[in-house]
């Protein structure tokens, strides 16, 4: 009982400190992790085994951590090192790509392909945002896309805000389509043993159908605003050529090849047996080996704060899991849904979406994984269906408010630094209906396809 009280207090305190940003979130999660080890596992449970299980270092030295010879399995509780290593590897690869100008080149190449026409640019940038976010973290996608959008808006004389908002939404949508698109998906995939293909054929399909609806929605919403003031005659000489954005030609080719290999490895990982942690290490090693001159620079640019935040978070959630709090929460959801699967899905998807609109979706998804596992066991509901429901809710819900997802914050800040302020009201008026629409689409597809 004492351990449960400690676990809940630490968890709530962690959330409050993360939301209020009094201290940086990685410090909050690490301090809370330490408190979990001391108070929950030590004073409350007197269990060294719980500490060892949660730290979970032994998982790294098992063969399954790197290579799966049979069916992919569920990872044990505690720190999900597979997620940490994969995200680290992808961060190194993305920094390598950014260094050689890959993202700016891609944006400019597409802009040139559509002859710098505003509406085609608007549509293609939304699609580009979706596709890139399927493989790369949404922060990087928006960082480059929003910067290029502002640059082009100044040259082509259109308001960049509608385009940036649409790109943000599509980055979050693209992230939901694959296992590596959004951190909650990586955590769900590695914790429950799903492959890249599992995600693409389930959440990917939902995201694909939703994308069509989103393209229509944003086109109808923004077409007049985008056309107003857009330059009718374009001075092509003032526009940067795609080639001029490449800073290192040889490095560009190598980075593109590593990116292509990463996609192939991810798409085929269920067949090859390589785990995402192995893929993360392979792409990081390849990037560092091929650009060894810049290896230290690339390693310095990795967002270690996020990785530390993950580590702390996994320990705190481990505290809730070990003390049985999450099972109590699962029982509560089961009770209010009356064991009805449709109600259960509705509760999970809307609860996830609403929570993710206001708080970080990573701790939320991490907390919910043991809950859906428990619901699946107790009520005999297909776990994968609950996993896709959770993934869609957490990934899409974040789009609803300016603080819901990292891509939103980065997009808003990039626009604001050029003077285009996107306030809460303006943001929510445009993005909330789109979020509700996609969550509804996702829920309906889940009902029709799986029930």
């Amino acid at each position, binding site marked *: 009982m004492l351990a449960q009280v400690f676990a809940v207090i630490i968890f709530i305190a962690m959330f409050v400190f993360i*939301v209020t940003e009094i201290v940086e979130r990685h410090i909050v999660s690490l301090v809370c992790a330490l408190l979990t080890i001391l108070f929950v596992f030590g004073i409350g449970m007197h269990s060294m085994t719980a500490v060892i299980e949660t730290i979970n270092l032994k998982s790294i030295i098992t063969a399954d951590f790197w290579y799966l010879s049979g069916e992919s399995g569920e990872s044990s509780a505690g720190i999900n090192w597979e997620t940490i290593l994969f995200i680290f590897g992808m961060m190194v690869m993305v920094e390598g790509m950014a260094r050689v100008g890959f993202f700016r080149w891609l944006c400019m190449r597409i802009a040139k392909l559509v002859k710098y026409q505003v509406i085609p640019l608007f549509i293609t940038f939304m699609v580009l945002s979706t596709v890139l976010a399927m493989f790369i973290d949404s*922060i990087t996608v928006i960082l480059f896309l929003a910067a290029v959008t502002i640059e082009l808006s100044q040259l082509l004389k259109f308001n960049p805000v509608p385009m940036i908002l649409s790109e943000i939404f599509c980055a979050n949508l693209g992230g939901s389509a694959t296992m590596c698109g959004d951190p909650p998906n990586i955590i769900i995939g590695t914790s429950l043993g799903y492959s890249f293909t599992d995600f693409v054929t389930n959440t990917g399909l939902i995201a694909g159908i939703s994308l069509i609806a989103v393209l229509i929605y944003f086109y109808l919403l923004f077409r007049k605003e985008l056309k107003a003031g857009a330059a009718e005659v374009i001075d092509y000489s003032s526009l940067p050529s795609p080639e001029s954005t490449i800073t290192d030609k040889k490095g560009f080719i190598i980075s593109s090849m590593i990116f292509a290999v990463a996609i192939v490895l991810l798409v085929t990982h269920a067949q090859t047996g390589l785990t995402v942690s192995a893929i993360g290490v392979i792409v990081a090693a390849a990037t560092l080996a091929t650009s060894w001159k810049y290896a230290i620079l690339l390693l310095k640019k990795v967002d270690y704060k996020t990785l530390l935040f993950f580590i702390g978070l996994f320990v705190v959630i481990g505290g809730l899991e070990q003390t049985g709090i999450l099972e109590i929460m699962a029982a509560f959801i089961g009770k209010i849904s009356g064991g009805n699967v449709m109600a259960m899905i509705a509760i999970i998807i809307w609860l996830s979406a609403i929570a993710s609109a206001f708080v970080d979706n990573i701790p939320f998804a991490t907390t919910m994984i043991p809950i859906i596992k428990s619901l699946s066991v107790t009520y005999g509901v297909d776990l994968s269906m609950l996993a896709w429901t959770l993934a869609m809710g957490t990934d899409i819900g974040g789009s609803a408010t*300016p603080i819901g997802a*990292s891509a939103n*914050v*980065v997009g808003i800040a*990039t626009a604001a*630094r050029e003077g285009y*302020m996107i306030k809460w009201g303006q943001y929510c008026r445009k993005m909330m209906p789109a979020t509700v629409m996609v969550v509804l689409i996702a829920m309906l597809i889940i009902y029709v396809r799986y029930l």
Partner: protein
Amino acid sequence: MEKQLIISVGREYGSGGHEIAERLSKHYGIQLFDHNLLDEIAAEKHLDMRNLRGLDEKHRSRLASRTVRGYSSSPEENLYLLQFDYLKNKASSGESFVVVGRCSETILKECDSMISIFVLGDMDKKIERIMRLYQLSKDQAVWKIREKDMKRKRYHNDHCDGKWGDSRNYDLCINSSKLGIDGTVALLTEYIDKRHIQQ
């Protein structure tokens, strides 16, 4: 003016700090940046002023905003950064100007040509001034002074390591109630002239 001169004026509400800054700007024939800083930025970047007004010198809401890898979703925070960049660019281009508030004493700390001043005042004199200027009752004036100063303090302390009004952050702190506006301006110009010659 040959040599660059930047005067940063921090002030308590009702102390007459803004009027003093205006007088200094006129005296030295240099531009004054106060609320008009936003107009300058909006004009330069072809922005809609309606979007920027109301955010100036406002404290960001921790609950309604989030920071990711140094990027903030807070419009107030981003407007601060926009003004920060603008003032930095102005200073590095060699221009002379007077700037009121906006954490300028911290933002432009590295500029040798910057002289930072904080103007304070006695409470009774500040109340008298606010009652006279805005036709307010004594209670209303007290409330307005406290509210404005609290906002300025929160805004400043949110962005700067040094505290608002702390004498260690400024070259000179002066109580305008003792010499009046004219006397304070006279004393300040004497100080600024001496500092300017030394540079």
